[in-house]
């Protein structure tokens, strides 16, 4: 139950994009079409889970024993970027179909703030290994949910009569604001 609450909390209540405003770059960049956003959401969710597990291990087995907690940020950056690159090479070789589907998004994720932010928050909250993974998976699913919602809205918007000055990113920002407002309704339901 505890894990379920944590998971749902990360998906909806503390949604990283819509309540903490992390990962906005890809949120706006890749939400023009539904297909691309599904690929991106899946890629972020899986990378986030895997890199959180890796970061947890690095933090608890290397940085804490050596009393180098202040190095968390640079170590995590290298760790995640290196891991994503490694994953890209492996997927390209062993699963070309999967690579064609969301391989191009992997590079975009390598230095994204959501992917760095979640492991950082995990170690700051002193989560156990399972809790970190559950929280990361929830955050990834939350990101996928947000970007898919956004892409569906923007696809519909293509046929709307938008004033010239608001066309493109302008109206996308307005919509993101409204989405964030509606997600504000969940706030406080499950405390972080």
């Amino acid at each position, binding site marked *: 139950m505890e894990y379920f609450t944590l998971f749902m909390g990360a998906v909806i209540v503390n949604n990283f994009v819509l309540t903490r405003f992390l990962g906005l770059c890809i949120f706006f960049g890749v939400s023009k079409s539904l297909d691309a956003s599904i690929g991106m959401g899946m890629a972020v969710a899986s990378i986030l889970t895997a890199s959180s597990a890796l970061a947890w291990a690095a933090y608890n087995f290397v940085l804490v024993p050596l009393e*180098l907690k202040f*190095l968390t940020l640079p170590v995590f950056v*290298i*760790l995640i970027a*290196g891991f994503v690159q*490694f994953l890209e*090479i*492996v997927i*390209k*070789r062993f699963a070309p179909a999967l690579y064609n589907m969301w391989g191009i998004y992997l590079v975009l994720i390598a230095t994204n703030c959501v992917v760095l932010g979640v492991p950082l928050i995990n170690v700051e909250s002193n989560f156990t290994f399972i809790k970190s993974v559950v929280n990361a998976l929830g955050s990834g699913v939350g990101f996928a949910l947000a970007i898919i919602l956004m892409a569906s809205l923007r696809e519909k918007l293509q046929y709307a009569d938008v004033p010239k000055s608001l066309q493109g990113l302008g109206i996308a920002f307005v919509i993101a604001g409204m989405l964030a407002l509606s997600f504000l309704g969940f706030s406080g339901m499950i405390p972080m």
Partner: protein
Amino acid sequence: MEKAFLILAVLTGVGLIFGFILAYANKKFALEVNPLIHIVEDALPKGQCGACGYAGCMAYAEAVVLNADVPPTLCIPGKEPVAKAVAELTGKAAAAMDPRIAQVKCAGSNEKALGAYSYNGIEDCVAANLLFGGPKACKHGCLGLGTCVKSCPFGALSMSEAGLPTVDPEKCTGCGVCAGACPKQVIAMSPLDAHVQVNCNSKDKGPVARKACSVACIACTLCMKECPHGAIKMENNLATVDAKVCVEKCSEAKCLAKCPTKAIRSALNGISGNENQTTAAAACASCAQ
């Protein structure tokens, strides 16, 4: 001081470990890409139109190089030169291609076709088609909102003032993207050397079609009776021309003169040409043979 060394050691250590892992992975899992794929891709027109049935030029190049069953003639925009080049590069035999061009099977301009209601919605044929089949009385004709024009990857289509798309034969590669984009299936891909074409898509019975549009094919069968080679048939109240028979056997195109609504026209005249020229152009076509 000790701490500083420790920091240095940890950071360089992490960097080095990942550097080695990546270098090793890059070597170990390196993907051998056949260099021929890139050479073939360079030979393709790179319109990314998808007429070959693959996701793009790169995907087709990959398929044609790696798969022995994929013929080198699939690139329709490239026509014969590209097919020959691809065949030469891949060592496959190139069969003859028959070049095609987009043909708009509707002459129902804004003046000639009756309207059913006034449409103020989204400027898109697919959207308009959802609303009672569009704002024209004829439910088979061109809606004139330019979805095909937007879809053309080669910029070969343009909207005429009369509200019909016109095909630029110089730019049209015959890829057929527009034919797929049109919700009314008004655009057909016809052989480049076709003599005559029926510029109507109406499957309604004669009186209904005539009421909706003054240049509709009313399925009177006059052209069919006039044709000595049996190239014209009636299907669903619409005349269809077998271009192959037409090209091979016919030299004078008598069918054009008989049509009471001028729905059947010389293909060499283009679709928006005026009626008076059709017979002259047909005569011209026959002397060219």
